[in-house]
């Protein structure tokens, strides 16, 4: 039993692996900012808030991607509206939109004939059904996200340190924040079709959190997170192939297990 064998024998698994690795790399870039800035909840909300958009688009016969874009734009717009008009804390605003959008999505999906089938497809994706077009889209997004993260590394680091110091250095922290949310949304939008909204969130948060336990530089956290995410995809797909587990969920479980493994190792290292 070789771990490489499934991918050599089955071209569709190789495509799935590529799609998963591309998703893991995009997630590593934006997930690092998400973990360091404490934006995990908004990331979670964004990844599930696309549900009504996707469901609506599928119902009306548009590509799911468009629906996801509309869904996340509504999410970001709604959260900043509540932030501007009320004194409610950010997580209350996110929670409101999160549960509202998710419920709306379920309402829309419940109109369709294959209710649970569609819901599961959106939540867990169809990584085994990834196409060349999916890969092209994901590669383009990865290149764009990587470029933005490189170009804006200084203002983004300032924003992580303190939005006020970003402003006093001449940058616009509100614009940077919205851009960061848009980058998270973009990752969700281009990845959910292959890996599903739940797995996107798993790949956003788990590898970056694991890497943040060890790495001492922003770029290194991203690099380590990308490697851990890709490793999770590789191991998860193997688990799916050999033991017939659900592919997407296996990848998520692996990524989270790697985090706890990392925590354990860190504990050992500190005791020595």
């Amino acid at each position, binding site marked *: 039993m070789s771990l490489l064998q499934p991918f050599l024998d089955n071209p569709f698994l190789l495509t799935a692996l590529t799609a998963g690795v591309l998703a893991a790399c995009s997630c590593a870039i934006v997930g690092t900012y998400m973990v360091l800035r404490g934006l995990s909840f908004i990331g979670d909300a964004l990844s599930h808030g696309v549900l009504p958009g996707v469901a609506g688009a599928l119902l009306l016969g548009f590509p799911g991607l468009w629906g996801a874009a509309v869904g996340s734009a509504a999410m970001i717009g709604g959260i900043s509206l509540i932030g501007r008009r009320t004194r409610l804390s950010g997580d209350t605003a996110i929670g409101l939109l999160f549960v509202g959008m998710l419920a709306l999505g379920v309402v829309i999906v419940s109109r369709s004939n294959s209710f649970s089938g569609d819901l599961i497809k959106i939540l867990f994706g169809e990584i085994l059904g990834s196409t060349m077009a999916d890969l092209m889209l994901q590669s383009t997004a990865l290149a764009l996200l990587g470029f933005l993260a490189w170009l804006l590394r200084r*203002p983004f680091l300032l924003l992580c340190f303190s939005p006020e110091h970003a402003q*006093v*250095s*001449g940058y616009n922290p509100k614009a940077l924040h919205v851009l960061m949310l848009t980058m998270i949304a973009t990752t969700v939008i281009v990845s959910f079709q292959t890996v599903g909204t739940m797995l996107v969130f798993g790949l956003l948060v788990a590898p970056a959190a694991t890497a943040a336990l060890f790495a001492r530089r922003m770029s290194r956290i991203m690099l380590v997170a990308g490697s851990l995410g890709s490793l999770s995809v590789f191991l998860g797909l193997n688990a799916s192939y050999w033991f017939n587990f659900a592919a997407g969920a296996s990848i998520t479980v692996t990524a989270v297990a790697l985090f706890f493994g990392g925590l354990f190792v860190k504990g050992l290292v500190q005791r020595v």
Partner: protein
Amino acid sequence: MSETHPSVRAVHLHTGYERSNVLPAVDLELFPGHSLALVGGNGSGKTALLRTIAGLLAPISGRLEVLGTTPIKAVRRLAWLGQFTTTNPLLPLRGRDVVRMAFYGERGLWKRITVSDELVVDQALEAMGAAEFARQPISDLSGGQRQRIYLSYVLARRAELVLLDEPMSNLDSGGMLKYYKAVTALGLRGATVITATHNLEDAADCDFALVLGAEESRFGPGRELVASLGHHH
């Protein structure tokens, strides 16, 4: 230009976090090299005024000129340090990395941080006695060590206007001495320094003081104004 322009000029300036909670009108004029102490009890608005001058808070009414222009336009020429700088313990930053961020505005997105910039960073760390722990992760440092790092960051910005909110909080006596020396050097270099403080002795040592009361604010020479406060109590 800068010799004819005041560093900060406020004419009947009102500011505050909300319209229901506005500071008394502030009138003041400071020139390069001047130092000003903001004095007032808790909630008197020292922090709000500093944030307004730094461009972090919009004035409600009145005029405010900073370095001959608006606070927003002057932002890269000033340095501001808030009272409660919290550092996310997850951030992968060493003390020196924080001080280096002083150049992130000036050098923009892609201009290199030069060897002479790095030298400025080292000198700032040296001035605050922070060089020996500058290579440690910021999250491992004590409150006082962190404050020395933040003050090094302020020095490294080489700003024309320096705004400090309770800068001596957490500093030990060694740190305070370094701080006094650094602030004196800033003044000699021609920088204007505004400090919010609870310490009246420090306020008396400043060229000017601004006393923020509930009804009115008073601007005048530091020693005289602080002495008059003594009579009131």
